[in-house]
């Protein structure tokens, strides 16, 4: 997952959420089909995929998927 496009495709397949790269900066509140409960599944899935730990405390503060992508890229 080296690009935001890869990340968004991963989100789509893991959560069954109909998102594309254009939705990355859409706030969660306005993201169709998003539920806060998806965040935990997504972080677990990212960690499993990358083998690296993501800061959950920071992830819980994220406003959109682009924020999460930055956290996963940083870790």
């Amino acid at each position: 997952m080296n690009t935001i496009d890869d990340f968004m495709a991963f989100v789509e397949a893991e959560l069954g959420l109909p998102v594309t790269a254009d939705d990355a900066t859409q706030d969660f509140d306005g993201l169709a089909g998003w539920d806060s409960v998806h965040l935990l599944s997504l972080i677990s899935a990212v960690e499993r995929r990358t083998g690296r730990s993501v800061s959950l405390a920071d992830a819980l503060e994220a406003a959109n998927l682009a924020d999460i992508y930055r956290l996963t890229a940083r870790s």
Partner: protein
Amino acid sequence: MDGVEKRSGELLELHRAGRLAAEYPRVRQLLTDLPAVDLARAGRLLARLAPDDVLREHPATPTVSVAITGHGTLSALPPVLTAELGRHGLLLRPFLADFDSYVFDLGDAGSALYAADPDLVLCVLDPMIVFDEVATPWQPADVEQVLDEKLRLIERLAAGFASRARGSLVLNTMPLPRRFTAQLVGHRSRARLGAVWREANTRLLRLSEQQPSVITLDLDPLLADGVAASEPRMSVYAKAHLSADLLAGYAREVGHLARNFAGMTKKVLALDLDNTVWGGVLGEDGAAGIEVADTHRGEAFNLFQRVVKQIGAQGVLVAAVSKNDIEPVTAVLDEHPRMVLRVADFVQVIANWRPKHDNLAELAESLNLGVDSFVFADDSAYECGLVRHALPTVAVVALDDEPARHVERLLYEGWFDVRDLTNEDTARPRRYRDDLARKSFLDDFDSIEDYLRELEVRVRLARASEAEVARVSQITLRTNQFNLTTERLQTSDVQERLREPDAEVLAIHAADRFGDNGLVGAVFVRRAEADLHIDNFLLSCRVFSRGIEQACLASLLRHAHATGARAVTGAYRSTAKNGMVREFYPRNGFHTERDDGTAATFRHGLAEIAAPPEHISLTVDLGGESA
């Protein structure tokens, strides 16, 4: 495992195309043997489906409604539970309560949880229920006090639940992670904490003995197999106090329960023999060459045989289906000095060279069971694949060349789990063997009438006693064919019927020259004004077509007439399996009042009541005035 990626991919494509509801019957197969991670992902897709959309496309899909409540964040549970139920061909109708609302949900009769009227309520207990309320610094005595308060609360909630809900309440033991025990630096106080914690868990487990509507799942065996109880970040930041892996294991156990509730418990274990029950190939290695004990691998097969015997002693019908000649097989089973399983432990030993799926289908027919009640275990991937392909509803346990794993593989899915074991269960294998003897007896007669006369059938129709409640409930859960309305009743539901002044629960007992069949059926009736209404009529598939149902119905009609009823009414609700009883009432003198194709009601005016079949000797004890 082969095809995992392909099946996961297919599921995702169905989701993307918006075809999951339309293709729901395919889902079961797509989920078969998916590894945990893939199953969880599949669950997230499936959880997006509205159950009503699935039911609109496939109205006959068996559905289980489950309410989920508890202390912590449980958002990981509905998706895995959706997948676990889907794996068994069941559709989950979930109700997820608000965060940490279990006290309100269960304590308030007007709560949304009660309004949802679920089949199962999962009240998920975690260690933070206790530690959130223990002040720092603490000693074991402080924890003990909070535990006692919580247990008393839970016992009260369970009693309230029993008095106002129809379903079952599922509790669980609370794990005790090391990050709590290790806060006590003294080993003696650490041991004390362990003791008070386990006493509380024991109380939770005992609660299922005291409250028929409570089931307590013991999570210790899952933890003992190496599942982490919690993930500290999820617990601290997201208040998800049980790990996703533990919730997945929990969901798997709930799936087994739901399967039982939906009447889908497996009844038959069909085993391959060579390299499944013993090591080696009998035809090549000979009786002296196969391994059943005393060698490393022999010990593994010996253990497996003991587990099969253990399961067979609890009502599962064990059969052997082997590619062998029959003579050496029966000889080695009965004569090998170290064999645990003997011919008498099997309801039937089948050894021939025909395809195994043909043998399984034939065995199902002679036992009068559906092949979907079969579990088939074989070490050969080829045989497993063939059975899966030819008989997709048979559950296949794929063993391999490591016999030390046979036991774990066999037990993994809880195929035979039931809620309560009854006396009937332990006698079942013998009764089925008697049935097979009856069948060969039947072959000697020219007409069915001659056969029935010689069979000397004795039937007793009587009010069910308290001691028979568990078995009556089991009849409603296990019987799929002769089940007029397929209303499944838990033990507590049957007890409630016994207490209702206008309702009556009647038990049907049968016996014949080959032995006692035991409690084989039930009739649920109710007085409604001047009519007697039959809520449901059930008969075990073992005793169909012997006139037992006609005899019981005739005596019920006579009784209704004698006690002043104006008419007797009955209902039929069609399922995938009960087509054989669609005409039960019309064939016995009832006229059809209403029939929309799936549900029908019938009425008998009691003017002319047919006599019970002559070949049956009938004893009726329906007591006094009420029914």
